[in-house]
């Protein structure tokens, strides 16, 4: 079964077998069923056996929305470029490209919002963060910034209006696990994390 999403410039016109996704190469796609619910059903001769294959198809709307949102996020970062540094910003852009990769992103979620991203940028700047976090997103489009150092983890949800929800976990020398979670303003995170030695994560 092919379960990857396949980008097509034209999702209205029924595809021909020659336009099959790469996963179907050499599998002898024979017939196509009509597009229904964003899916294409393929009948294929695969190694002599005939089966029905289902391919989930990206709508052009999803591709365009992801492209537009990616552009909006990158433009929003321009307001803070003098604080971020060129290399940091280039690395951040690679991470945004990765997060919003249309072949990977689950479009049943909302896309990361610009409001959340602005909180993320201010979190980075006000807390003098040198080390880029990993990036993720919640189902409702809130950016997740995460720092991981061995078993010590810091996870921050960047809510609109400079508000963050965070949870920190650190293992002490004797193996004892300490953790803390709270909601605060982005600018003050380093102060709240003082007992956890935030340089472990922020550099």
């Amino acid at each position, binding site marked *: *079964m092919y*379960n*990857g*999403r396949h980008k097509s410039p034209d999702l209205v016109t029924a595809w021909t077998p020659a336009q099959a996704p790469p996963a179907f190469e050499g599998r002898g796609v024979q017939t196509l069923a009509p597009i229904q619910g964003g899916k294409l059903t393929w009948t294929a001769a695969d190694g002599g056996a005939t089966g029905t294959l289902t391919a*989930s198809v990206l709508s052009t709307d999803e591709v365009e929305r992801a492209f537009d949102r990616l552009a909006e996020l990158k433009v929003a970062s321009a307001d803070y470029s003098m604080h971020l540094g060129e290399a940091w910003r280039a*690395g951040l852009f*690679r*991470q945004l490209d*990765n*997060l919003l*990769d249309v*072949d*990977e*992103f*689950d479009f*049943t*979620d909302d896309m*990361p919002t610009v409001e959340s991203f602005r909180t993320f940028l201010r979190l980075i700047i006000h807390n003098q963060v040198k*080390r*880029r*976090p*990993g*990036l*993720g*997103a*919640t*189902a*409702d489009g809130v950016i*997740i910034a*995460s720092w*991981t150092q061995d*078993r010590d*983890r810091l*996870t921050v*949800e960047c809510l609109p209006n400079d508000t963050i*929800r*965070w*949870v920190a*976990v650190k293992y002490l020398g004797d193996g004892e696990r300490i*953790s*803390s*979670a709270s909601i605060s303003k982005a600018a003050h995170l380093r102060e709240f994390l003082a007992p956890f030695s935030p340089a472990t994560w922020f550099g």
Partner: protein
Amino acid sequence: MAKVTTLDDEHHILRYVPWQRLRKDEDNNVIGFNPQAFELRVKDGVREEYLSAAWVEFHRADSLGENVRQTVAAFAGNMTVKASTRFALGNVGRVREVCAAHKQKVRISHEPVPGFDAHASVRQFNSDDQNLLELLAMEAWAEMVAPP
């Protein structure tokens, strides 16, 4: 209505985790799950009533590995599973234990739904507790399974 059965402590549950809830490092390498992978979703202002997963031993294979393989296949028959998707595997007893330590007496049950016979639910679960979500993501429900 399909029969709902409480799952045994020694059994396992598997949860789908989308790309954007995977934990990554600054170079985009996938290194685990974010706590939000175990958060009840809010859609159109309504929060999910339970956490969805699949009961791994439903398939009654001879090994845990084969049961997991068949469960992943069951997900793939029910939804789009891309190469980047990961699944979180957890022991039912351990998940119950960790939730209980956070004052949550969760109900983990086999609760089949149309088109997904292995479906399981984690009910009476409050996902507002970030410390609990972190513990699930890091230890109790943290074994990562990739699609074939």
